[in-house]
């Protein structure tokens, strides 16, 4: 059993994104497995496995109260709530360390320094803001982060230690019923809970490499430039880019979160977005975008549950 493994959680409409991510991962780390928890029915899982994904099925995970979660959550809530479950499952498989990556990411550089940090600490997180700077535009972002969560939940690294397992089981327990979006009251899916992680896990390590998990929140601290075959983030290599809120139907719009900025004025190389959109299309993005969610719930049900 290899020491390190990567994983993600997706629903059927993210199969192409996951294929793009896994291919970019394999380009740099062909020897490290990338497992994909696919929250979908069996035919979809079989097709995805045939397309080259290393699929984990919901039934493999032994999630307590899975039926309840399927009943009370919509697609996004369930997929975010299952992050701790895949971390737990992969640690139980005997891996020494697990990296979770969101499916809307792209690996653009060698991750060895990052993976060493993951293996060396109980918990690794990427803060949205890595340094102090007082500007007016920053203040707006800072205030939104206080409600959205300070650490980006698109990247979580855990090692197989007592402390990590305790943290994962706490996170899983909270997300069983409280994967909500109600920022004003202190909920933001899985992400807001991570604010408590440094309190609970003594060996929490914050990754300060500017090239790891760059996204729309990194403007204007981090500029991404084209460099030969790859990309650079400030002075170092760009390792992981997070296309949070990016929609290939509108490839000129950076993100549906960060203020609908244009990709041409973000300080990020526009080629990166063009390349990603091309990869998504090649992976069959159009056929999957409307994949139905197999466990729909009436709206009144959700309102009743979250009241």
């Amino acid at each position: 059993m290899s020491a390190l493994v990567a994983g993600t959680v997706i629903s059927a409409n993210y199969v192409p994104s996951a294929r793009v991510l896994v291919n970019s991962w394999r380009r740099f780390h062909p020897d490290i497995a990338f497992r994909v928890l696919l929250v979908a029915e069996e035919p979809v899982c079989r097709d995805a496995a045939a397309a080259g994904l290393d699929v984990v099925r919901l039934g493999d995970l032994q999630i307590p109260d899975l039926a309840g979660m399927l009943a009370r959550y919509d697609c996004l809530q369930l997929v975010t709530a299952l992050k701790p479950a895949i971390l737990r499952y992969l640690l139980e498989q005997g891996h020494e360390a697990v990296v979770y990556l969101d499916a809307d990411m792209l690996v653009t550089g060698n991750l060895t320094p990052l993976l060493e940090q993951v293996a060396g600490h109980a918990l690794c997180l990427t803060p949205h803001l890595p340094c102090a700077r007082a500007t007016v535009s920053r203040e707006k972002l800072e205030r939104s982060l206080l409600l959205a969560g300070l650490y980006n939940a698109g990247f979580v690294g855990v090692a197989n230690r007592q402390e990590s397992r305790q943290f994962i089981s706490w996170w899983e327990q909270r997300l069983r019923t409280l994967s909500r979006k109600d920022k004003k009251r202190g909920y933001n899916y899985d992400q807001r809970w991570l604010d408590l992680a440094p309190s609970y896990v003594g060996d929490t390590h914050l990754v300060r490499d500017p090239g790891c998990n760059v996204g729309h929140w990194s403007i204007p601290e981090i500029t991404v430039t084209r460099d030969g075959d790859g990309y650079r983030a400030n002075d170092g290599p760009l390792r992981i880019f997070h296309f949070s809120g990016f929609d290939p139907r509108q490839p000129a719009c950076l993100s549906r979160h960060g203020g609908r900025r244009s990709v041409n004025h973000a300080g990020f190389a526009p080629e990166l977005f063009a390349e990603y959109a091309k990869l998504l299309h090649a992976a069959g993005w159009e056929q999957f975008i409307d994949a139905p969610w197999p466990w729909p719930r009436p709206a009144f049900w959700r309102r009743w549950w979250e009241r």
Partner: protein
Amino acid sequence: MDRHRILLDMSRHAAVTIVSKRHLPLARVTAQTFREHNPGTPFYVLLADDEQGLLDPACEPFELLHMEDLGIAELKQFQFQHTEMELSYACTPYAVQCLLRRGFGGVLFLKQETMVLADLSPIWTKLTEHSVLLTPHLLAPPDRPNAARHEIRVLRAGVYNGGVIGFANDREANGFLEWWQGKVFRSCLRDTKLGCHFEQRWLDFVPSLVPRHHLIRDPGVNVGHWNLRERQVQVQEGRVTALGVPCRVFRFSGYQADRPDMVTKYNRHYTVASTGAAAAVFARYQVLLMAAGYTEAKRFPYAYERYDDGVVISARARRACQQANAAQQAGNPFARRRWLGFGRWFQKGGKA
């Protein structure tokens, strides 16, 4: 230039708290108990208020700092924008930096309702190794029914407690303090729906912004109503322990000496009687507060409560001043009857 400025000496430490005149007895008790266990370390109190002849600095158990010592350029605006409680919270980064400028190598901030129960040498040692020291409200998931609800409360109020914070005199800490000052200068409100909780919520950024921070995991530091149920406070022969280790700093956030049956005004169902052995600590604190002149000080006026002509400043006026631009704020906002400046603008129905 601060006339107290002296050469930086990293081995010299100081502690500081902030009160208005009404809460002077809280500062007296904090200072007395601090000095009892940390002889030789100076304890400062910033008066977020004016003396108005109601105290004699020579007779107090602490060194007194005034608002004028903080080096705030728009001091009148700062005093006008905040209510009494908000002002004493908003002064925190200024008071700490004022002492760092005087050459102390490390400054420990203790919020007003605090009793020091043992020597703080472990904290001073940590301050030589790290830039900013913080105490998380919770060190582990709370062991109580409705644990998640308690965690959500903590998430809304801030993950780290603003009652015990240490700062070393280095670039990272000073940089963070200046950033924090920028956040609280205009507004230091409690509006959790917007992510505001006085000065405290901004501390959530410390681990992100200050690489050399350290979270104090000693369960005996910063015991308060938010973690009292988990800390298992015991009192034996006058010695207080929390989870078996010496309790060094006990916090009485929201405790009122004239309502000694209640742990905190923030939770009216939480009674001192239900806290077990900790009740003895509350009783001890209450006696000290009363001896420090609690009843007398409660009647003291607050210097920034009224305009110069004696009219009480409304909360609306304070909020309007926060949101006004520089031109609208011009002049002394306390001078209501001037032809120019904030008073005039506000009286004419000024809206931000």
